[in-house]
């Protein structure tokens, strides 16, 4: 079946603009994660959704960042008033449930000019 799909694959935006990044997880996966990866670095946890539970937002770096997951499927990560330090690859992953391996999408490369 299809893997995790992210769009757009690349996004260039001007400082101060808002951006929305989309993630379509694997069908049936109840857990969904957002991570951020700076150039050549490891992954930084942002937010985690599990079923209908309240999301774990402990990794969001500021109140400019928010995410939602509609109908337990598609998720959108929104960054308001983008800053240059927000430039990174934003990776989405899903998994079948608690403690199961993550399946990653190919990410959205965000560049803030």
């Amino acid at each position, binding site marked *: 079946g299809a893997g*995790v799909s992210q769009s757009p694959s690349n996004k260039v935006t001007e400082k101060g603009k808002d951006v929305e990044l989309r993630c379509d997880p694997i069908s049936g996966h109840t*857990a969904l*994660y957002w*991570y951020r990866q700076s150039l*050549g*670095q*490891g*992954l*930084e*946890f942002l937010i*985690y959704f*599990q079923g209908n539970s309240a999301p*774990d937002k402990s990794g969001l770096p500021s109140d400019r960042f928010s995410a939602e997951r509609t109908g337990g499927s598609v998720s959108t990560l929104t960054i308001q008033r983008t800053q240059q330090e927000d430039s990174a690859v934003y*990776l989405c*992953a899903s998994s079948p449930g*608690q*403690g199961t*391996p*993550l*399946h*990653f*999408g*190919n*990410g959205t490369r965000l560049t803030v000019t």
Partner: protein
Amino acid sequence: TQLLEQSPQFLSIQEGENLTVYCNSSSVFSSLQWYRQEPGEGPVLLVTVVTGGEVKKLKRLTFQFGDARKDSSLHITAAQPGDTGLYLCAGPYRGATNKLIFGTGTLLAVQP
């Protein structure tokens, strides 16, 4: 704070050479995972180690989990250009097993 530090940070070797990548922490992990990430793609899971002292083999890759479950290593025998990529170790946050923290990564380049 739980941290996973990987070494070396960069490694460039010739095809056919052997190498070892390390993942270390001062914290105990219930399990550790290894991922490989190629340019423009997301990380792909290679293996999960769960038991202290466990050794798992995946073709030319050998993974070991330390006895105290604070460290892990990845050994590649006779590296191939297809092994090129960013190798990441990851483990669950203490008390929040559904979240993974990732290591700093080792960027491996295998020259033909």
